[in-house]
């Protein structure tokens, strides 16, 4: 049995209590509530086992049961994980943005039917079935949230980061986006209009940031390196020339 992994969402203060970047806390030893009553193995956990290993054990038990019953195929699980670890991520979205910056005809198609235009580059499917592009301009900044769960355009951005799914972001984005942006080190001019998109339906929003100045001679491929994940969520800006990592 592999040792439990420490979740990287925040510092583990001490045994039995982890404080997360999400602002949520975990109590390890509160196993009496009805969500966990069926897990007898909870009582066996000891020493270095935290709440996170408790959930890890539940997941392992579930996978064992489902596999033995023939309801899930472990090879399929591996294939799912591999897809989201290696094939789907924000580099996909960056290609879309860089193409939009350099190809006016593509930008027009993206505005008209983002799902189809994104599919031209080979991206689509689960959690990106209905895409819409939202364009930043000199007077409007866009930011995307899902206050009700964690809706996010997977095919172009990959799986959402922890902060996107966390209570601080989901609660505050719709009422105090400037405060949220400050947490990301972003300050917008006071006169800038802000549009926050709450993903309450199956529309998935991709922010088209403004093309950085001083990139007139840049190729599409070079430009793609300036496009950060956060700039496509609206919690950041693209990198500027000279700042590429």
């Amino acid at each position: 049995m592999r040792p439990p992994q420490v979740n990287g969402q925040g510092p583990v203060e001490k045994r039995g209590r982890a404080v997360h970047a999400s602002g949520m806390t975990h109590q390890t030893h509160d196993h009496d509530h009805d969500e966990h009553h069926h897990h007898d193995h909870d009582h066996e956990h000891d020493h270095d086992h935290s709440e996170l290993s408790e959930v890890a054990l539940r997941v392992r038990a579930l996978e064992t049961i489902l596999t033995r019953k023939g309801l899930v195929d472990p090879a399929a699980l591996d294939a799912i994980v591999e897809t989201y670890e290696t094939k789907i991520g924000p580099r996909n979205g960056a290609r879309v943005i860089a193409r939009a910056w350099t190809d006016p005809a593509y930008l027009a198609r993206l505005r008209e039917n983002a799902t189809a235009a994104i599919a031209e580059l080979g991206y689509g499917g689960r959690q990106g079935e209905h895409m819409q592009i939202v364009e930043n301009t000199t007077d409007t900044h866009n930011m995307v949230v899902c206050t009700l769960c964690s809706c996010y355009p997977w095919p172009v951005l990959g799986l959402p980061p922890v902060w996107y799914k966390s209570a601080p972001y989901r609660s505050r984005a719709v009422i105090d986006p400037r405060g949220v942006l400050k947490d990301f080190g972003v300050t917008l001019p006071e006169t800038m209009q802000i549009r926050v998109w709450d993903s309450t339906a199956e529309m998935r929003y991709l922010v088209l940031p403004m093309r950085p100045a001083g990139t007139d001679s840049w190729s599409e491929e070079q430009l793609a390196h300036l496009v950060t994940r956060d700039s496509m969520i609206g919690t950041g800006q693209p990198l500027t020339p000279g700042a590429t990592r």
Partner: protein
Amino acid sequence: MNGAQDLGGMMGFGPVIPEKDEPYFHGDWEKRALAITLACGALGQWTLDESRHARETIPPALYLSKTYYDIWITALEKLLLRHGLVTPDELQKGEALTARPATRNPPLAAERVAGALAKGSPTERNIATAPRFAIGDRVTTKVMHPTTHTRLPRYARGKTGVVTFRHGAHVFPDTHAHDLGEQPAHCYGIAFSARDLWGEGADPTLTVMVDCWEPYLESAA
């Protein structure tokens, strides 16, 4: 339902703390949690809307104390029990004790994963009814507090906004989550001014866009 998932406008959670160069997964268990959730969903015994509802019915104190994949797994356990795919005894013992139950779809095979993920589950439908609202119409969202699933957040109930997009007709989550069929309805992007949502002191530059199905909306005088 007015559960802990409905977070828009709540206060006191502290700052957003982005993790530098955050990995997709924090530990192997998160990978398996994601994959099991998707693979079980592919069996076709419940809808995505039902699984969202299973997550939001986690008691608020628990919901807010769990990491997101823990929320998923807790909801998945509920769904598996509800639909008879695993028994309470099996969950308790961590062992398979009964034979595989019949499912709508066969278990997801590895070679079908790429195709299934690439296809997704589009929700747009053709319906005979014409959309009731036009771009530019002023609409008011209903005041309602269903105990069941809805995608109209509390902060946007009883508020007046402007129809800005027409998204076509989409599967209606409020029924789809409860085995009451797709009942597709027209869906609109509604623009609300922060002033109308939050009152005095609201950011004067802020507009919040909320996607609303037609049954959520009434014409505003």
